[in-house]
């Protein structure tokens, strides 16, 4: 029933951050370090994790805006990494991206019409009157007035710009859209508009989303499955109900608990299991399980052995030597 749209295996991206004369000090920043991921057609896969854990890098790897250091990537069944030149350019049309920052993601010197028409023009999809019509249809779809087509980005509010970005992304009818924190820069009251819009468009155009965010509530709202990343690795991956009902990784647990709940009534009886410490450097990640310095349950083996991402329950993957259990959690 579920059709695989994209599959990544051992996807890795290291940035060379060497210093010194003739690069004597070799240093690698492991932004993404061996990620396995499958995206099914029509679903929304959410990715959460702290700032700098490699979410954006992963997103850009999946659409080959960055070249992976290692790993394989197949898209609609074919090897995506093997594509070059014109073929790659053509295939790119199938994966689009919506960025976090609605201000820097639109060329300030192009009109809305030019911005949205650019993908159509690049792939020679429509010409002249027809192209204009297509743009108008897209504007309608994202809820913008057609008369805005002649304006420049700076004349719009953040929410409106994000709609323009979305219109551009869906112009090519892509199979997959990577949403890199599309709502975190927006006002609270606007966020909901955009999330609703995206959900609607997903239905309307049969889109598949990879939804990156660090705000858990939003991710939870829109996703079917959620992957939790920590320091370049996926530490837990599960359908959202399962993840929230029973997080298996201590980091996921800490993350969920840290999210403030907009209800003063519950504030005094919430458990306060606080994750201590800060995110370690991706240049010198901790040995063994990367989470061990912050993990309240860490044991000796966590320091030496790196846990693999394994399926603990059906569809629920975790990379932890000592996954949480309900019983133990209750004890806390």
């Amino acid at each position, binding site marked *: 029933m579920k059709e695989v749209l994209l599959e990544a295996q051992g996807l890795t991206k290291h940035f060379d951050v060497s*210093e*010194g*004369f*003739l690069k004597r000090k070799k240093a690698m920043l492991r932004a993404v370090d061996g990620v396995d991921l499958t995206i099914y057609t029509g679903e929304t896969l959410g990715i959460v994790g702290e700032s700098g854990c490699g979410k954006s890098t992963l997103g850009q790897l999946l659409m080959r805006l960055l070249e992976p250091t290692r790993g394989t990537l197949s898209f609609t069944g074919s090897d995506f990494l093997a594509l070059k030149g014109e073929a790659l350019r053509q295939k790119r049309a199938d994966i689009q991206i919506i960025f976090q920052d609605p201000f820097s993601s639109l060329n300030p010197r192009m009109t809305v019409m030019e911005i949205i028409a650019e993908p159509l023009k690049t792939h020679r999809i429509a010409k002249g009157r027809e192209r204009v019509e297509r743009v108008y249809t897209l504007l309608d779809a994202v809820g913008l007035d057609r008369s805005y087509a002649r304006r420049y980005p700076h004349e719009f509010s953040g929410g409106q710009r994000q709609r323009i970005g979305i219109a551009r992304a869906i112009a090519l009818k892509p199979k997959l859209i990577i949403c890199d924190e599309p709502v975190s820069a927006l006002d609270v009251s606007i966020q909901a508009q955009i999330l609703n819009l995206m959900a609607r468009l997903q239905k309307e155009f049969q889109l598949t989303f990879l939804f990156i965010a660090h705000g858990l509530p939003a991710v939870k709202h829109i996703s079917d499955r959620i992957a939790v990343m920590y320091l370049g690795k996926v530490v837990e991956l599960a359908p959202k109900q399962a993840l929230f009902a029973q997080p298996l990784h201590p980091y996921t647990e800490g993350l969920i608990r840290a999210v403030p709940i907009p209800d003063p009534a519950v504030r005094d009886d919430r458990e306060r299991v606080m994750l201590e410490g800060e995110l370690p450097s991706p240049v010198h990640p901790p040995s063994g399980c990367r989470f061990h310095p912050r993990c309240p349950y860490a044991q000796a083996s966590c320091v030496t052995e790196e846990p693999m991402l394994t399926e603990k329950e059906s569809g629920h993957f975790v990379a932890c030597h000592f996954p949480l259990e309900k019983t133990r959690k209750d004890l806390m």
Partner: protein
Amino acid sequence: MASYIFKRLGEMIPVLLIISFIVFALVFVAGNPVALMLPEDASQEDIDQLTASLGLDQPFLVQYGKYLFHLVQGEFGESFRYNTSALPLVLERLPATLELAVAALVLAVTMAIPLGIWSATKQNSPVDLLAAGGSVIGKAMPNFWLGIMLILIFSVMLGWFPVSGRGTLGHLVLPALTLATGLAAEITRLLRSSMIEILNQDYIRTARSKGMREGMVVYKHAFRNSLIPLVTVVALQTSTVVGGTLITETVFSWPGLGQLLIQAVHTRDMAIVQACVFVIAVLVIFMNLVADVLYRLLDPRIKYE
């Protein structure tokens, strides 16, 4: 730090190679200097003979190869005009040029800092407008004209300073002022805009929120930060200042590189032109290196190694 400096010095080599090539090619294209060396009524045989004996009839690459070979030994060849090795001639003048350039830099910076800070903190005040106007005019005046005017006013009419030459501190004032004017204008403008930008930074607000006096905020927090772009720009200006000395030295008959070089250019004295350009380039690169090191000392965000 040491390895950083080492690395930067290493980077100089290709740059200097490019410079040597550019200059050599230019001088080569400039053609035969021999006709210039001989009297107006010299005959063609005389000219050919001298050309051959100076090795100027060889092909470009042969000549360039020889030049490079000598270059790595610190030799730029003999000056045709002075009949001595070019490099010592150039190095001999360097102190005078440096003295002038440094004096101008110091003068410019001491004029510009108070003006720049004042303009930034009192935006659109009469002082700001005056400084803005003054600095634009300072930039807009050609150096040589300013120099001649200063001599006319301060030496001939008022008799305050000696007209020309090098010697006492008094001799330094007018040429340094000539050079410094444009520079000070540049620095004032830069300092003003960087101070304004820095005064809008969050950490300035933090400092104010501690209850610090505004003066302290400006001098301790804002000025320290604007020193960083200042250092960079002053270093970038080295090249302009040294360029400016060419003119200023001529006006004030200051015995620096300027006169030597201009004479050499006019007489096609290749060796001197090459040595001069090279030495100036090394100087400029060195100043930029110093600026970079200073920059690193001023800004802890940049790592030492």
